[in-house]
């Protein structure tokens, strides 16, 4: 039965600091996840076009398709026949150059092609490498005129993805380290405020685990509660920002692609928060039996 007013100010300030720290962490994760989603969306536009020669037989085309599928890197292959290509071309140029679209001789030069999408399990960062390898494999085949995959765009996109992923990883390490530091210090303040209790417990023969356990539990509870509170704050901010994007900045078409963290991730985050809290506690109490009482007098 403890005096209920004891250390409330310290406990609340510790909770606020830890919550702020976890809020930054969860917001960063949310940002990273949505960036990744957007990049994946953009990545879906990354595809390779294999232009076929005019005289290619059905068998030759099928051989090329088989070769592509056999690579294991291809998700979807779509045949754009000369007829479809002509129709598309006319539709696109009808309003800009009506005369050109009527030029039958010129239009005969438009080749049939295979539109190739990469498999969805290939990460954005690996797309360039895989497209280059596929292009090198397909280009020498008979019946292939040209292979194009928008090299410039894909390379820039991959570089952007790579930079963002590295930045997020570094940021993640910095934020986790900062959270550990903040929680560890918050617990240290709690340990200091309970120094007398530790002295007494040591003196009356409490085992080291008996002394440490309450601090580890306190750290874990602090981590779990503050991470859960941080997620609530993050969700409120997310809802507000999404509402703004949908209502005021709808032309960006970002709102519909934004997603909050998944339920499984939320549970993992709280468990991770508890683990981080317990570890932060452990860092500052692992030497707890250096003998406070022994240093008296």
């Amino acid at each position: 039965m403890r005096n209920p007013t004891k250390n409330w100010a310290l406990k609340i300030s510790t909770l606020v600091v830890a919550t702020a720290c976890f809020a930054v962490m969860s917001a960063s994760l949310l940002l990273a996840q949505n960036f990744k989603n957007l990049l994946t969306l953009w990545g879906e536009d990354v595809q390779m076009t294999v232009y076929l020669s005019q005289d290619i037989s059905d068998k030759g085309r099928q051989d090329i398709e088989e070769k592509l599928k056999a690579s294991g890197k291809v998700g979807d292959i779509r045949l754009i026949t000369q007829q479809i290509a002509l129709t598309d071309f006319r539709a696109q140029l009808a309003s800009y150059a009506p005369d050109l679209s009527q030029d039958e001789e010129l239009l005969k030069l438009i080749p049939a092609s295979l539109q190739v999408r990469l498999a969805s399990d290939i990460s954005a960062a690996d797309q360039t490498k895989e497209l280059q390898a596929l292009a090198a494999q397909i280009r020498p085949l008979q019946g292939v005129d040209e292979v194009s995959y928008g090299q410039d765009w894909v390379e820039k996109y991959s570089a952007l993805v790579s930079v963002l992923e590295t930045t997020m990883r570094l940021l993640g390490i910095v934020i986790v380290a900062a959270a550990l530091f903040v929680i560890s210090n918050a617990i240290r303040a709690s340990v200091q405020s309970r120094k007398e209790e530790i002295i007494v417990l040591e003196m009356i023969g409490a085992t080291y685990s008996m002394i440490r356990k309450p601090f580890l539990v306190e750290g874990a509870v602090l981590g779990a509660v503050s991470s859960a509170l941080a997620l609530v704050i993050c969700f409120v901010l997310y809802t507000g920002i999404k509402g703004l994007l949908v209502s005021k900045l709808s032309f960006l078409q970002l709102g519909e692609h934004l997603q909050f963290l998944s339920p499984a991730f939320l549970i993992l985050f709280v468990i991770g928060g508890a683990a981080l809290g317990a570890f932060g506690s452990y860092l500052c109490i692992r030497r707890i039996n250096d003998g406070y009482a022994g240093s008296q007098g």
Partner: protein
Amino acid sequence: MIEFSHVYKTYPGPVHALKNVELRIDKGEFVFLTGPSGAGKTTLFKMISAYDVATSGEVRVAGHNLVTIKDTQIPLYRRKIGVVFQDFKLLKDRTIFENVALPLIVRGDKAPAIQRRVYEVLEQVGLAHKHDQYPEFVSGGEQQRTAIARAIVHQPGVLIADEPTGNLDPRLSEEIMDLLERVCAQGTTVFVATHDHEMVKRRNKRTLELRDGMIVGDSK
């Protein structure tokens, strides 16, 4: 019960805190330890409570060799001794009952046994009527009596008290000494460090005098 044999303690510097200390205190004895500040009283008490280890020599208390004792055994050893400090070291956020009950809780006693024993000891020190009060709201003498109750509640073989009357007026000091004598009369070895030479004279008990880390007098 307490035995020091050729004990030396040297701190980096080097500072020779204890030099060739030889002493033996038998079961049920009441012994004062006197000496000026810096004589080594606290070092000697730290060794008895297993907070410090002798540089050389042998220290045996309640059947434990405190020079070779393992870290994991120290808490179990401390459950066999009682320690009283000058500044009481009571937990402010726990009642007098809860403070006194702590050693029994740590030992793993059952709640009914704890309740029975704590009230018995509180009766003994005259604090049963204040069992639900917080230490801040009782007098200095009552706080020290609570500390003594906590030190004897688990019926230790040895009770060491480092300046237990240092913060109390003469009347309360006498009360505390009476209480410690009653504890001793029940079979506990009581070892008290004090600066109060007048009180030591009045009590007429065995007195060890420590000076510059050496035992220079033993009234036995």
